């Protein structure tokens, strides 16, 4: 597996599911494995170990534009809660499974997390911009209007 895209979020909570829209736009293709998850869990670390590039895509209520940033394996905080951050997962993959690839986080602007399946215009536009950025990073040929 050359690349792994991890789309994080809940499609029943409005913009929280924007990463799944990004996954839809990227589409199914042999050179990329796309995983859709509600939250980050430890077993993803093993799947990451087989990839040379991993891109986490997630909604970010504080982002005003799509941002793609390189992740470091250093956890910024101890994972003391029931959730994991992308940085922590990178660290877990490196320490337990020898992951040596490059990991990125794609932050997609999001506004509304109320119950419902629709994205706000901001999130929809963000999803398209995010899909273009991820496609460019992974050298994918994909038509996104």
């Amino acid at each position, binding site marked *: 597996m050359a690349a792994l895209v991890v789309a994080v979020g809940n499609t029943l909570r409005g913009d929280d599911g924007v990463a799944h829209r990004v996954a839809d736009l990227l589409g199914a293709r042999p050179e990329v494995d796309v995983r859709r998850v509600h939250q980050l869990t430890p077993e993803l670390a093993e799947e990451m170990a087989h990839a040379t590039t991993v891109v986490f895509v997630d909604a970010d209520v504080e982002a005003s534009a799509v941002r793609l940033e390189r992740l470091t394996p250093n956890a910024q905080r101890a994972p003391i*809660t029931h*959730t994991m951050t992308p940085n922590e997962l990178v660290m877990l993959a490196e320490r337990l499974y020898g992951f040596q690839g490059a990991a990125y986080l794609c932050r997609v602007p999001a506004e509304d997390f109320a119950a419902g399946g629709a994205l706000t215009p901001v999130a929809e536009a963000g999803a398209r911009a995010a899909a273009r950025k991820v496609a460019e990073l992974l050298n994918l040929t994909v038509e996104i209007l």
Partner: protein
Amino acid sequence: MPERILIHPMTRIEGHAKISIWVNDAGDVESAQFHVTDFRGFEKICEGRPLHEMPGLMARVCGICPVSHVVASSKAGDALLGVEVPPAAVKQRRIVNHAQVLQSHALSFFHLSSPDLLLGMDATVDKRNIFGVIERDAGFARRGIRLRQFGQKVIELVGGKRIHPGWSVPGGVQTAVTAVVRDEIAAWVPEALESMGIALDRMKSLIDSFREEIEHIGNFPSLFLGTVNDDGALEFYDGRIRISDSEGNTVADGLDPLRYHTYLGEASEEWSFMKFPYYKPLGYPGGKYRVGPLARLNVATSAGTPRADRELREFKHRAKGAVCQSFHYHLARLIEMLHAVERIEELVADPELLSEDVRTKAIPNRREGIGSCEAPRGTLFHHYFVDADGLIRKANLLIATSQNNLAMNQAVEQTAKHFVLPRQLREGMLNRVEAAIRCYDPCLSCSTHALGQMPLIIEIRRRSGELLDRVERG
């Protein structure tokens, strides 16, 4: 002098909660409360929804134990249709429910509680996490991840999705299991059994170093409630309710889970969103009972599978009557994981599993239906009323975690009184209070999130509300 010590939010549990520790004028811990700050309102959300939507909708109650909600909801639907579910569908539901017990318990034991168990309750916060466990024993951490992965994989293979599978419906399930799926599941079993043997040996070797915690973290008499089969053995899908006391005596046996409301009451308190169920014949709060791994092993006569039976016999020797120490929920959890792997092995070897007769279709024939099963954290009940068109008029969910609410509050108070010295407050003291709750592995559900921080905040306040001290970690 602080009068209230607040632990908020609690860490390494599923969901959001806080703990208040109240201090008296003499400076000693007087009482403690476990508050649940989530409010979800699922019982209201489902009013007006069609019956056939319920299992899929109820899966959304939780991201950790969705399968139990799907199974209990499907069983309530079976009752409303008034149909007999094909045996292959029952076997599928059993497999997926066992797989969920396995993955949920693996998360609780290896990721949430093993930092305390392997590194000690007083280890520094920066070490007391999964990375600390990896530093201590990377192989142990990998086995934990693989066990959870196995459970998730089985759920995905049979149920279609790892989280919120909606394959089970009133009357059965939507698809048959193929031989390829069966073989893929069977191939995981030897490794899972080996890992469970290693985990159980490790846990039993650690227990003696926690004598004080075993004695003072939630060690008290209570009733225990769980489902058993006709032989009195551990049962997760169908069976009768048995209630025993702390002496090991059977208080009630052969209770029909479909009549749960005749023997279980539900009280509420203004300081928590979680209900306080109790055993009606003993009243509230005297009818406090516990559910989940510790309770199930206390009420069951046997496990019904060879390896788990050996472990259960050894487990029962830890006390003369029932095992009342909440700390032993951890060991009980591991025994149930072993049992789950053995049951999955049995079920995938059954040729009937591959039958394509997996669903009985009907329109609603009754207006009231109840479904129950054993979820990872205890007995679960779904109770629905429908109108003539099969739309939900009213729903009541009696969740496993809420049935441990009274016990969790007592465990928190007992632990705080023994370990917390308000004048010399140390982090390890508060960690033991949190550990009391982690024994019960409460599932408070949060399936939505966005990037952000989730710190642990401990606030010390006077009764007037004045903030005296605040510690934030994370």
